[in-house]
């Protein structure tokens, strides 16, 4: 059993709330990422699960065991939690060679030395470090040191692995390579992973689910697809991928609703596929649309019209900036699109979200 449950978890340093009432269940074998800008509380949450920080309120369960509860005064120290952890700066011990680093958890739990040798070799081949057992950390590259840290966490067969921005010190190419490897290792041994990162691409590529945090509070919990296609608030929409925000006013039209832009020259109302139960006429809202969900069409076919101000050729796409009165909107068009600067075009929205 290796699920992790957080119940109303909070942490404050004095007056400052660094983690504010997080509740979450991470299921067995799941790869879950804590994503957010620096200072959002993701690392503190991870360190509370590891046992390095004590929560001010709330409970943490690993498996079925309560490991931390501010209310019941339960606190299991990190060394008794059986979690593996990989640190941002690797934390590979410089005075021990690769073998000793990786074997250390087994030595602590008094495994027989013949078994230690066996298991170290197995895990070293899993992280592709076979043949390097007698090297010292200063003889290894950053990527290799990270593999040592990974092996050291894996060898204890932990209930859950915690990874704290493990790839952020690596160069771009290596980072991509390690992403797939970590994912692959997880798939093979089926360990539960909690992964902290500020890199949205990393979180999208690896995670089963993402917990998006901002200013100590949960913004959204969902699959990468849900976060991208159905962001629940402006922060979530803005943090992941590119998006345009435009102010709209809702107008009733028969039984349904339509909207018009508040800051555009062309304020022709256009239909929206939201029901009157969700929104009602007279409201002012924010219309959020991703650049790839805007089609450039002839002026008559679009929801609104605008004028091309700038276009940049990026190979696979053309990056257009279209002026709609006071505001400007970014549009990604296929590189075959043939609209020129100052030309009036129609904009057609294929997918969008409306926020308060």
């Amino acid at each position, binding site marked *: 059993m290796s699920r992790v449950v957080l119940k109303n978890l909070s942490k404050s340093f004095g007056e400052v709330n660094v983690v504010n009432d997080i509740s979450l269940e991470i299921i067995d074998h799941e790869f879950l990422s804590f994503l957010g800008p620096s200072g959002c509380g993701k690392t503190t949450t991870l360190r509370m699960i590891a046992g*390095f920080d004590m929560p001010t309120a709330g409970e943490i369960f690993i498996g079925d065991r309560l490991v931390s509860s501010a209310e019941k005064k339960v606190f299991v120290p*990190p060394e008794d939690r059986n*979690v593996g952890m990989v640190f941002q700066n690797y*934390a590979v*011990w410089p*005075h021990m060679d690769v073998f000793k680093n990786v074997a250390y958890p087994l030595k602590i*739990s008094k495994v027989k030395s013949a078994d230690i040798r066996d298991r170290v070799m197995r895990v070293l081949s899993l992280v592709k470090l076979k043949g390097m057992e007698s090297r010292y950390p*200063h003889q290894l590259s950053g990527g290799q040191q990270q593999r040592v*840290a990974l092996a050291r*966490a894996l060898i204890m067969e932990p209930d859950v692995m915690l990874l704290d921005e493990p790839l952020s010190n690596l160069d771009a190419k290596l980072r991509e390579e390690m992403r797939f490897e970590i994912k692959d290792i997880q798939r093979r041994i089926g360990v539960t992973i909690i992964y902290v990162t500020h890199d949205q691409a990393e979180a999208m590529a690896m995670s089963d689910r993402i917990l998006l945090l901002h200013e100590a509070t949960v913004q959204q919990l969902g699959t990468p697809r849900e976060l991208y296609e159905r962001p629940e608030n402006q922060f979530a929409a803005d943090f992941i991928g590119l998006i345009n925000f435009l102010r709209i006013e809702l107008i009733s039209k028969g039984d349904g609703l339509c909207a018009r832009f508040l800051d555009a020259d062309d304020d022709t109302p256009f239909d929206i596929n939201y029901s009157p139960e969700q929104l009602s006429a007279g409201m002012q809202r924010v219309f959020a649309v991703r650049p790839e969900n805007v089609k450039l069409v002839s002026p008559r076919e679009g929801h609104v019209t605008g004028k091309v101000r700038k276009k940049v050729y990026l190979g696979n796409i053309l990056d257009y900036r279209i002026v709609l009165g006071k505001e400007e909107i970014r549009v990604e068009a296929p590189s075959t699109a043939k609209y020129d600067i100052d030309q009036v075009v129609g904009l057609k929205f294929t997918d969008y979200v409306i926020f308060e």
Partner: protein
Amino acid sequence: MYHKRFRADPLILGSTFVIIGVLIVFPFTLLFINSLKADGVFTFQNYVTVFQANRNYTALFNSLKLGFFTSLFSVLLGAPLAWLVTRTNLPFAKLFKTLFILPYMIPPFVGAIAWSQLLNRRNGYINSWAASLFGLEGHVFDVNTMPGLIWVMTLYLYPFVFITVAGALERMDPTLEEAARTCGAKTMRIMRDITLPLVAPSIAGGALLVFASTIANFGIPALIGMQGRVYVLTTMIYSYMRRGLTGIAMASALSILLMSISVGALLLNNLYLKKKQYTLISGKSMRPTKLDLRRWKIPILILAFLVVFVTVIMPFVSISLTSFLDAWGAKITWDNLTLKNYRYILFEYALTKDAFKNSFLLAISAATVCMVLGSLIAYISVKTKIRGRKALEAVSQLPYAVPGTVVAIAMILAWSGKYGINLYNTFWIILLAYIARYVAFAVRTTSASLEQIHPSLEEAARISGGSWLTSLKDIVVPLIRPGLVAGWFLIFMPTLRELTMSILLWGPKTVTIGVAIFEMQEAGYVQISSAFATILLVIVIVGNLFVKWLTKGKAGI
């Protein structure tokens, strides 16, 4: 038209090489040659003679013994204290950190005076107190012995270990220990497997620094050892030089010996241990988890206070109390307290007034010259591609690595008339010695600030039409000014209280503060030397606080 303009840089930069040549290379070469010369011919005779004399042998052995035990006890005292203030929830840890470094600031010879008052066999305060308490006859402690020397030396030099180990523990990446914890290791196990092996190079480095400083120290063995006829290399050289210039051949040979040992220890530290220490530094500082002392908190707090009491409070109380005594050795009563010792040294005694004047003049001149010379050397080494710049920098560091006694002997050899210039017994020979020894400080502080200045800043000034000198004056100097000011005080403070070199170089008209206190103590004017030492301590403490305020806590202690 092409104007041939006067260019200042080759002249100024070139003369720096010449000055360092005359100031450092020349005297040290002479020292080396002189140790190999007897009766005008090259020979190893001096070294043979040195080892034929039993007392030289004993002095060498004593130096090594003192160095070894002082290093050992400094580690036993300094390393646990460093761990306590950085890694546990000891109350007032920050205050204790300052207090544990404090002995480093007290001039060792002042510490020696204090401890000979506290522990001398005739009427040491502690001996008298113990005798009256337990009704004993005679003395319990005798400071004028090898154990006494080791005791006093340890109390004043253990901060080297404390500082290096505390630094290593603070810089050490806390995740190294956290990683061990997630592997299932308990606190004590982590200490043994991770923390201790990782700080071991720093402990060894601190111990080597203590070793080098111990065998280079003059004040403590002179004031405590000589009375008990315990001679070490520095005091043996001093006693040869007291015979006048006739002892200089033997003194040179002993100096070379002394120099080899201390430079060896420092090289070992720099070449081998420093490299190992680098692997610890993580760059970003995070707060390490602090160990809860629980029920040990109060006993350990008392112990920490006891260390401060013994190393700082007791000696200070002893010296200042003695300075107010009318008669030394008599009972401490109101009738026996007086201010006359202060009146005497401040207003009546010509020698002490001279000492103040000379020391201030020497310290101000040495600090100023060192900063000018040192920043030129740093500039050449950091900012130019002149050939030999690294050698220049290395040579400028040499006199600080070498014991002060050795520097003084080299100065005497070079400037006592044999080569045309006779500065022996003058103000100038002391000044030259101070400059030679402390220019290393100036080079270090300024090169650190110079490295922060991107070359493009100077290049922009040149492109704008400024000459080299103008860009130096308008761009470089203003940018490194805080470093220059801090560096000036870092030289002013130790030269003001200098003893080791001054004692070999002073003449009838060039008494310094250190020499005056030393001579009065040796002559038995205990209250007067105590009063003088108290004044010096106050100057040192106020000066350090001032430097700390001036540099916003970066320099000073």
